[in-house]
């Protein structure tokens, strides 16, 4: 901060006519100054670890072996890009994110529309519907794996047996569906809340006018409600995707990435390489590739797909 401020002062003393400019600059710094601690904190907690990770990714470092940190250049990255499990993990990450957020948004929309009407006990129903979101993800994973889906003691299989069916070992027979079910259960309330806020901010007179004009309920939903909800939908999908893309708890608790590597996503794979395989260098390289990949996808997606950001930009320009 002082390094930038000092030249400004020097300019000011040398050229009195630039005093105005210097004053403006000081004012700008007075505005920015209070933000600096937060910025510095952000750099410390995000950028320094990242630079360290890049540094570690250039070494072969197996924690389980003595004297192993040695320079290997980019060969960890070569290993990442020739590793079939890595590509499978990328695919699973995309799969989990798209399907979970998609289903959660649709369910959330349905629930939000229902909750938007007045009925007896609405507050209780709303609280109950929100509660999955308030449960610790680890606990949610455990509930799904043991209480609901367990082949011998699970509630779902108990119901199946009542109706004379044969029990299904969901977690191993349908691992991806089990993980997605857990994630959807957790994130539907979140989508529902955002969309409910959108619905309640909608002017009622428009809908009334539509009804007077003879529009059916479906038509007014399609023509009026959905367009109004667009930016809420985008926000819900965006935030949901940001959280779901690094799902770890559900996978760790329900399937441990398996069977085999069928539900291993990127965060779980990195965890496995680092904390079960003790390959510090390799997992650092995986981390770097993941961060870079996520940044590229995120920035493209933000610019292309989402009107909230585009409108914001045009407003500024």
């Amino acid at each position: 901060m002082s390094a930038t401020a000092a030249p400004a002062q020097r300019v000011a003393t040398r050229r009195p006519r630039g005093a105005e400019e210097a004053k403006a600059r000081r004012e700008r710094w007075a505005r920015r100054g209070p933000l600096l601690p937060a910025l510095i904190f952000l750099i410390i907690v995000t950028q320094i670890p990242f630079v360290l990770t890049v540094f570690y990714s250039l070494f072969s470092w197996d924690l389980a072996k003595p004297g192993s940190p040695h320079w290997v250049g980019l060969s960890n990255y070569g290993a990442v890009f020739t590793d079939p499990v890595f590509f499978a993990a990328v695919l699973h990450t995309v799969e989990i994110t798209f399907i979970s957020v998609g289903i959660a948004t649709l369910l959330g929309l349905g629930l939000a529309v229902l909750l938007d009407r007045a009925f007896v006990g609405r507050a209780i129903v709303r609280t109950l519907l929100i509660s999955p979101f308030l449960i610790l993800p680890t606990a949610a994973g455990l509930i799904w794996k043991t209480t609901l889906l367990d082949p011998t003691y699970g509630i779902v299989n108990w119901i199946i047996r009542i109706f004379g069916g044969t029990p299904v070992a969901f977690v191993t027979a349908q691992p991806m569906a089990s993980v997605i079910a857990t994630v959807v259960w957790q994130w539907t309330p979140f989508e529902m809340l955002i969309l409910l806020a959108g619905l309640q901010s909608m002017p009622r007179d428009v809908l009334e006018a539509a009804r007077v004009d003879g529009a059916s309920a479906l038509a007014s939903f399609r023509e009026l409600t959905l367009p109004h909800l667009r930016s809420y939908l985008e926000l819900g999908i965006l935030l949901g995707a940001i959280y779901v893309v690094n799902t770890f708890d559900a996978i760790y608790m329900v399937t441990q990435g398996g069977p085999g590597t069928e539900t291993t996503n990127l965060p779980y794979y990195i965890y496995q390489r680092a904390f079960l395989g003790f390959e510090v260098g390799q997992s650092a390289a995986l981390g770097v590739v993941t961060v870079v990949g996520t940044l590229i996808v995120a920035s493209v997606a933000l610019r292309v797909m989402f009107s909230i950001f585009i409108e914001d930009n045009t407003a500024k320009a």
Partner: protein
Amino acid sequence: MVRRSVFRSGGVVRRSVLRSGVACALGAAALALTGCSVAGAGGGAGSGPHGVALRVAIVSNPQMQDVEMLIKYFEREHPNIKVNFVTLPENQSRATVTDAVSTHSNEFDVVMISNYETPMWARYGWITNLQPYIARTKGYDENDFIPSIRKSLSYRGAMYSVPFYGESSFLAYRKDLFAKAGLHMPAHPTWPQVAAFAKKLDDKKKGVAGICLRGDSGWGENLAPLDTVINTFGGRWFNMRWQPQLTSPSVERAVRFYVHLVRNYGEPGPGEAGFSECATNYEQGNAAMWYDATSAAGTLEAKGSPVAGKNGYAPAPVLKTKHSGWLYTWSLAIPKTSPAKRAAWQFISWATSKAYIKLVGRKLGWSNLPPGSRLSTYRIPQYLKAAKAFAKPTLTAIESADPQHPTVKPVPYTGVQFLDIPEFQDLGTRVSQQITAAIAGGESVKSALQASQQYAQDVGKEHRS
């Protein structure tokens, strides 16, 4: 072989900064997976005017929780020592302890490790030679440790960790169900016999599986029983020239046998059943046989267990070898970095002494003794009475386990259900995932073993060079 070791030349200060950074940096990069390690928390074990605070990392198994409960008796005898436990589940504990010990981060004064880590870490100079301490401790009697256990925790004739409890594997079976079906368990069953029993006793309608076997991923989960099957079928992981053998006919036959057995006559959802799931299944009467750790018998015979008193225990089934049981022990060691080695040894020698074992019996019940560490445990009359069904089978199983010669042909590694090489944690985890995929049915045994062979190829290459 010219490996430039950057971190070692860096001097003390730089090294410690790099070290504590690694967990945090990885965490951040892995999209904030975990919190940073507890490195540095609590500071060092200081020997200030008020004595020593020991930092002890243990695994959260029932026997270890007993230590926590009884620690007041130790602290009463040693008023200048305070013991602080860091208790974690097995996988987390292993990651934390490996991290701390391998980076010399002085996080713990006592760590709970096993016969997998002990010989390797002793060779690397990461843990303290306990032999001099043992020699100076009157009445400790290391000759009382079960010989196979003692040997598995020694490096060049000196013990580097001392056993807290030990286990092998055996076959628990329901005597009542066998009698009802008119079957008779031989004194030394073979795997084909066991498979035939499983087929006869499997009763899907009543929800009773023929046999419960672990299928869940993890080198400490499904690979433990499976490796004993591979061994006794004559298979091995590597030949003497470190060429991987995972696609050899004998390994394939063994894995096919195991997968077929558990898929057809095993518990429902075998791909997600580990030790605890099988324990629950068997204890609730949902399985007629269970091949697993000898240490499980204590819970099966405990008061309140629905199957207490109904079980027989047969040695680990075999095919081509005489014995096939595994050998495992949770033991206590002192990292080289600990500044409080003497106090650490006082705690360790207390927790692994004959007196401690009797203390558990008096305070918590005689069936709760930490089994499988000392021969004298099997001469305590109260224990022999409480553990009548399984005490002798346990001791026999542990005594006959042979990590030096696990299978028919010679191998370049030691270990029955694991390979005592540093790469095994990683290799084992990956292979076990493939096995789970085969058990769950998503993959064929052949392709699972081909993928495993590929993983083993890299490890073998490193050992050949």
